[in-house]
């Protein structure tokens, strides 16, 4: 499973913001012409960056492509990086920008929405109650398919808000839209998901009452 904090808010590992000296040394080596030194930076930040991208892009192949592209862009613009600041937030911002562009271009993921729960979650989480597990898997699969059905602009706002916990002001700046547009797109996306998932919730509540 992809790591996440208990309250659902993802934060970068503390080690990522503290290893500035190590990062600075590798960056200096790369700028001096030692290209292979950049590999150390890739090994260090590939997993958290993958998680961040996967939560936004949702599929592994797309995440892999964007991850490699993010590292290549970082290498090409290494001269622009201010070594007095931490490296990962800068790298993370490049990756999120790539993901935003990808989401906006992708449109509705109609093929993904047709997949079944077992195809989306081939390995179900282990729980004591298999019925609850099944319900949860089905609900999550339904949610995944519902997200794929959203329009690109609504999906981008929703995922950036829920995964990256960006404020309305940040969303307005990153996406280049008004704050009112951010609020309206977010509201529409949530209302659609709530409507699509209502049958699952109502079924669950009925089952609970029966028990």
């Amino acid at each position: 499973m992809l790591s996440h904090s208990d309250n659902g808010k993802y934060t970068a590992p503390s080690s990522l913001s503290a290893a500035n000296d190590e990062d600075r040394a590798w960056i200096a080596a790369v700028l001096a012409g030692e290209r292979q030194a950049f590999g150390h930076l890739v090994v260090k930040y590939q997993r958290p960056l993958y998680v961040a991208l996967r939560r936004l892009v949702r599929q592994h192949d797309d995440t892999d492509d964007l991850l490699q592209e993010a590292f290549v862009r970082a290498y090409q613009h290494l001269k622009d990086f201010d070594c007095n600041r931490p490296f990962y937030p800068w790298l993370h911002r490049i990756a999120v920008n790539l993901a935003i562009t990808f989401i906006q271009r992708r449109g509705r993921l109609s093929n993904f929405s047709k997949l079944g729960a077992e195809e989306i979650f081939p390995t179900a989480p282990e729980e004591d109650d298999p019925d609850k597990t099944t319900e949860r898997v089905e609900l999550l699969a339904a949610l995944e398919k519902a997200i794929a059905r959203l329009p690109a602009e609504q999906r981008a706002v929703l995922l950036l808000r829920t995964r990256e916990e960006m404020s309305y002001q940040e969303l307005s700046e990153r996406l280049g839209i008004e704050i009112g547009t951010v609020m309206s797109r977010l509201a529409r996306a949530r209302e659609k998901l709530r409507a699509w998932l209502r049958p699952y919730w109502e079924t669950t509540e009925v089952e609970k009452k029966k028990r």
Partner: protein
Amino acid sequence: MSKVNLDCITATQRMHEFLDNELESTMRAAMERHLGGCADCSTTLAQLRRLENAHHQLDGQLKPPPEAYWQVLPQKVMERVRASERRRLLALPRLPRFKSPVERVPTANKLPTSNMLNLPPAVRSFLNGTLKYALPLAAAAAFCFFMIRELRRDDGLVEKSTMQASDSTLQSSAAAKKTDREAREGVASVAQPVNLEEQPTALRNAPTKTQYLPASPLAISKEHLEIKFDSLAVAAKLESVAAGGSGAMAPHHSAGAAASFGQRQESTSPGSVASFQPALPRDSIKITPPTQLLAKAEDQLADTGASRLAQGDVAGEFRPAAEMPERDDKAQEPQALRAPARASESRASALKMNRTAGESDASKFSQVLQQAQQTADLKQREKIWRDFLATEPDSSSRGLAIFHLAETLAAASDSTSKLDQLEKNIAYFRDNAAVIRPRMGEKEFDREVARLQTLLAWRKSSQKP
């Protein structure tokens, strides 16, 4: 602080802001109070929070990649880095794209990418942007320009060399047309001699052949022929001056002369007219006004018979030199310039007197012609011409007057019923055939005479009892 009371509509609208902690404190307090008393809005909020939790749970359910993936990823990244560097070295054109993610990152000391030559940003942006499209556009524009120029060169514009080669032929045809027209109308401008002393500047400034090139081969103007003749006159005058002759010769403005000259020029190489070297013996060149030549021809007719003149040996009319009868052993001489074998000073003075007389005859003839053309009555027109012939027996335009009188009589024959008048008209045609035939044309003359005879025969037969 005043309390804000929300209704369900407002609460539903601001629910998402409340969920995301984006409401200000006053509004947030009002929302909490409303949610405490409204079951529907509370249910909506609960569902939204459940959805948020589902998002977080969803990420946890995503299957992570295998461990081998993390071993391969650094190598794949470095390969991609090397490929990007190779692409940059080859300076492959980049397709226009949106603003890159890195460009959105606000960082200090931001330097442009691909700056191996350390060019200024403005120059780099120009090379990467404008120049990329400017060069192909410039090449296309240059190609179109040269194609259009080549097409225009072949369309409508005549090369100078082509004009020079066909100039003589064009002069012949144009001169023939002009002479024909003027012979019919008796335009006096043909017989307007120009005194060299009076108009030296015009002749001096006569353009050379290479300078005057009309756009169309058929558009040779009268001025062109006259200018050419002026050049000829200058050359002839120079020749006569060099030979010690009189300088009082009047240049010949006959179109036939110019045409003859032009035809002779076929054998010469194209070039400046001023460089023309006449092939005639110097002492044989005499330039005579066409009116005087006509009078002289009539005198010769009386002396030698009509054989020569019947074949069109009259000044002012162009005939190819090959068709002209040989008058003497100098048959190669142009007709317009043909002159008596011997020249003398007395002859030059006689020409001078004739030139003056010719000017007055021509003007009078033109007046009579105009008067006759304005008269619709055929009898009156006949009277005008007969009076002219009677009062001007020595006029240089006598031949033309006879021709016009013959035309008037032919027209009048159609309406007359008098047989004797018809016979007189036919006799007039025959008696003056030498004068009328060359102006009317041989076939036309014969046709007209035959018509009059037929008309006479028919009138005779109709009047028989």
